[in-house]
């Protein structure tokens, strides 16, 4: 027993000695979109940020499994910039004093709900529900709970307990605050609230499946999920595999860098 403790404690000491070597991250060199040329850019695998970054001249584009991993690498000076959606970028920057968002937006796009090709009945219902929620201000009210200075992070409350029309399975990637993230064992955020509101309209129960972002389209395509809602913007390649509703939120791709 004593031996085991000695072994473990020396292991801890050894790892502690390793950690924290080196500081002094290199200075920021990206101040505008043009500066991205030839730089190393971090993105999240499967996002439009990756697709856009791949078009930047001579840039070395690295695809991380999570946006947060790319941010971590940026903080440590392993990347020159990260291209990511504006809302998650704001959350990351608010939690990291050493990071900033460049004021030049990289691209503007709209988030939509993905559903299986050919399932026009569901598509029509979703579109109608989104139109109605846009019209009566529910979408704006939901967004206000999660974005901006007055955000209180209060989740949407079910208004309608009628679930006679069955279950709607939503595929998402809960690593994308404020649209979706983990809070304890629950997934919360704008997308979750919007889909809860949509399900209220449809008289369905929402069931959320958490998966890797690049698996969501495949999950919808193969019928493992009814809808994919994860801050997904419409691209031609994605439209080959799934159908999209109208946009429910406008967003930009922004460039995150270290502070000067």
């Amino acid at each position: 027993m004593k031996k085991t403790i000695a072994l473990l404690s020396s292991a801890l000491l050894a790892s502690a000695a390793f950690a924290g070597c080196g500081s002094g991250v290199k200075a920021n060199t990206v101040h505008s979109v043009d500066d991205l040329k030839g730089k190393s850019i971090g993105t999240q695998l499967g996002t439009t940020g990756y697709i856009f970054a791949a078009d930047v001249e001579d840039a070395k584009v690295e695809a991380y499994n999570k946006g947060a991993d790319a941010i971590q690498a940026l903080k440590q000076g392993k990347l020159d910039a990260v291209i990511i959606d504006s809302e998650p970028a704001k959350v990351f920057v608010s939690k990291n004093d050493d990071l900033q968002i460049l004021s030049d937006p990289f691209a503007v796009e709209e988030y939509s709900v993905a559903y299986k090709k050919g399932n026009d009945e569901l598509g029509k219902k979703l579109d109608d529900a989104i139109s109605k929620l846009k019209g009566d201000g529910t979408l704006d009210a939901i967004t206000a709970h999660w974005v901006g200075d007055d955000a209180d992070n209060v989740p949407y409350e079910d208004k309608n307990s009628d679930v006679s029309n069955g279950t709607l399975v939503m595929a998402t990637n809960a690593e994308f605050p404020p649209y979706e993230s983990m809070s304890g064992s629950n997934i919360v955020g704008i997308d979750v609230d919007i889909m809860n509101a949509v399900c209220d309209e449809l008289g369905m129960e929402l069931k959320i499946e958490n998966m890797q972002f690049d698996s969501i389209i495949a999950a919808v395509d193969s019928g493992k999920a009814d809808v994919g809602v994860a801050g997904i913007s419409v691209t031609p390649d994605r439209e080959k595999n799934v159908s999209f509703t109208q946009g429910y939120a406008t967003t930009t791709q922004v460039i995150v860098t270290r502070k000067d």
Partner: protein
Amino acid sequence: MNEFLQKLYDTFIYDDRWKYLTNGLKTTLVITFFAVIIGMLLGFIVAIIRATHDKTGKFPILNFLAKVYLTVIRGTPVMVQLLIIYYVIFASVDINKVLVGVLAFGFNSGAYVAEIVRSGIMSIDNGQFEAGTSLGMNYTKTMFYIVMPQAFKNVLPALANECIVLLKETSVAGYIALEDLTKGGDIIRSLTYEAFLPLIAVALIYLVMVVTLSSLVTRLERRLAKSDRG
């Protein structure tokens, strides 16, 4: 059929997407090759230290360090080790990711190789040591000329197995955005949203590599068996 050809085109030909796989394969091979070298060197050194300590009681400090190494490496998943090396040990250093992969998988493999080789050394009858000593050889000579050659032959299948495991384990390298073979397939998958072709292609490439590796080892085993009597 046309639809399948279209998918084949989208997955591999369009925009030179097959390059994700060939470049990834190159990275996977480079990482595996150097990780195997580090793993074997480290493994043999640690095994000899541990076996010598068990047999003669020499090197108490080195033996203790070796034990710490084995406990830590075998007690934690390789993916966590990879992330620790990238984000903790080399924090705030812009280090070559292939090097991170080589170090992580090399150190990891070393621990397993060490135990395999040690079991090989311990499997050689003590009479062989005594025979060496009675011929006037010292411990080191007995170890290298009598014990190790026999031990190596005994553990060769297990070592080959370790190499195969290592080759396949490198597929977690994608977690630090290292573009290995698996990540190459993942990138194609994320561009086409078509899972079947890239995943099957990646699986086939791994399979071919493992089968080639196994057949090479079989040949080596046969070659070494020639010196066996009877």
